[in-house]
């Protein structure tokens, strides 16, 4: 078991690496294909994981991870729980603009509202952006890939004058107000 660190390795020239963490493995592959196909100017490497921490065996070969994307399916409780567990294993340096959440199924009427609320609280308290995606259609996946790429380019340092921390302070999810109007952290 090894924990990845954002600044422990040197970056490579014109390269961006993204790690997609998803317990179910439903969306990962499609999203990875879409991300790689859409980017032509930069070498994008997509790494997939079911959860964190990552195994120690390929530690040396693993490039520096510029962005960690947690994919959460609101239709399953397990997805949310495993994301919460993975988050605990993530190095704190990543929360300076190198983590984002990708949520699917938020429009489905059968999903309990509490799940989205608790995920928003989680993202809000970690100051991370929360992206909503449609995983059933190809257009939805390619839109999600586009959005992830936008953030990835910034957090990999490929956009001049913008840093991941700066972007995430603009795009981070706000903590939803509780019923009595107080903000909970």
């Amino acid at each position, binding site marked *: 078991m090894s924990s990845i660190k954002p600044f422990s390795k040197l970056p490579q020239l014109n390269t961006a690496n993204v790690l997609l963490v998803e317990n179910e493995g439903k969306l990962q592959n499609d999203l990875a294909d879409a991300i790689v196909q859409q980017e032509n100017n930069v070498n994008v490497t997509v790494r997939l994981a079911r959860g964190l921490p990552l195994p120690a065996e390929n530690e040396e070969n693993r490039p520096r991870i510029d962005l960690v994307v947690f994919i959460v399916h609101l239709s399953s409780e397990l997805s949310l729980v495993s994301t919460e567990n993975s988050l605990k294993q993530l190095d704190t340096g990543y929360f300076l603009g190198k983590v984002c959440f990708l949520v699917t199924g938020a429009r489905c009427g059968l*999903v309990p*509202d509490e799940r989205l609320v608790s995920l928003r609280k989680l993202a809000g308290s970690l100051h991370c952006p929360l992206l909503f995606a449609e995983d059933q259609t190809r257009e939805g996946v390619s839109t999600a890939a586009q959005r992830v790429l936008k953030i990835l380019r910034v957090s990999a340092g490929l956009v001049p004058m913008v840093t991941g921390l700066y972007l995430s302070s603009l795009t981070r999810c706000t903590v939803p107000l509780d*019923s009595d109007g107080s903000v909970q952290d």
Partner: protein
Amino acid sequence: MEAQKSATMTPRTNVASGRRSLGFEKTNLRYTPGQLTALRIPTSRRKPNTRNDIDPEQLAYIANIEWKLSYVTPLYKFRHTQLVLYSKQLSAFIVAEKQKGIAVEVGPEMGFKVVFSVVLGMTETDEDAETVFIKICSKPAFAVEGSAVKVVWSGWFTCVNGNLDYMRSLPSDFVSLPLFCTNGPESITALVKSWFTRMFDCYFGPLSLNSSILQWLGALWTECHPASNIRYLKLAWNLPTLPPLDISYTVHPQDAWNLWSSIRQNDSMEDGISIEEVRRFMKGLESHFFRHFRMHLSAGMLTRICTSLGSAHCDGTIKITGTQYITPVLMLLTECAQLKMPI
């Protein structure tokens, strides 16, 4: 006590208008868009207790029938005093719609008799509007005198313990009966809905029950076990594997009760149930399943919950058998329906 009585006996639109318009301006100001999301399922509920003040004859119409649930936006200028008039208008409307496009009347089933009635006592607070029950019987053209009429469709509007802030924020001409239950052919349901939409300027939408609502129902029914035997606790899950897997899980009532009471002992809340207890109860059931089959039920979706007191399905159908516990179930469903209201 006296005031409460008169409020339940007389149509509420007449009684409450003064008080409502008084409270309206105050509450309306409080409803800033940010706070509207506060209208959500509460984190604790009262324990179910038996009730006998509803007319058993009227309850019999509701019990043991599988109802399809919908939500309705508040009805504009609906009056409980004019139910006879509504009966005539709705039956005329249904006949007219059925005859549309038919040159010559064919088939024996052309006559419809619609009866609107009030189910008294199916409320929790004074602000709840009385339940309205609608029955549609078909009249065969050549029926023998005195032969039994056949009920082809029935439905009811109800509101049990509706959100007070929401109901007070409505203008006085609106009656909030957010939950609409129907049983019968879809074609008649569609006709009734379109009549209500035209008459009372409301909107109908399907009401599905998400897994947290089903979990609440399971816990509420299990809580009733010592008083009235639930006989079984059946749950069904749908796991998104390839191909999809349907899992049905039946728990012996005594085991369910033992699990539930072991969870309840830890908490001191005497007459209430908290969402945490419900979660722990479901987690207990799920971890037991995991120990045997190595499958995470939490990865799937809870689709059905069923005891001898009633059953509920996630697509929005419910059947209530234990009518003595009807109030907590309807309170839960009213909350669900109110969450769907556009504000």
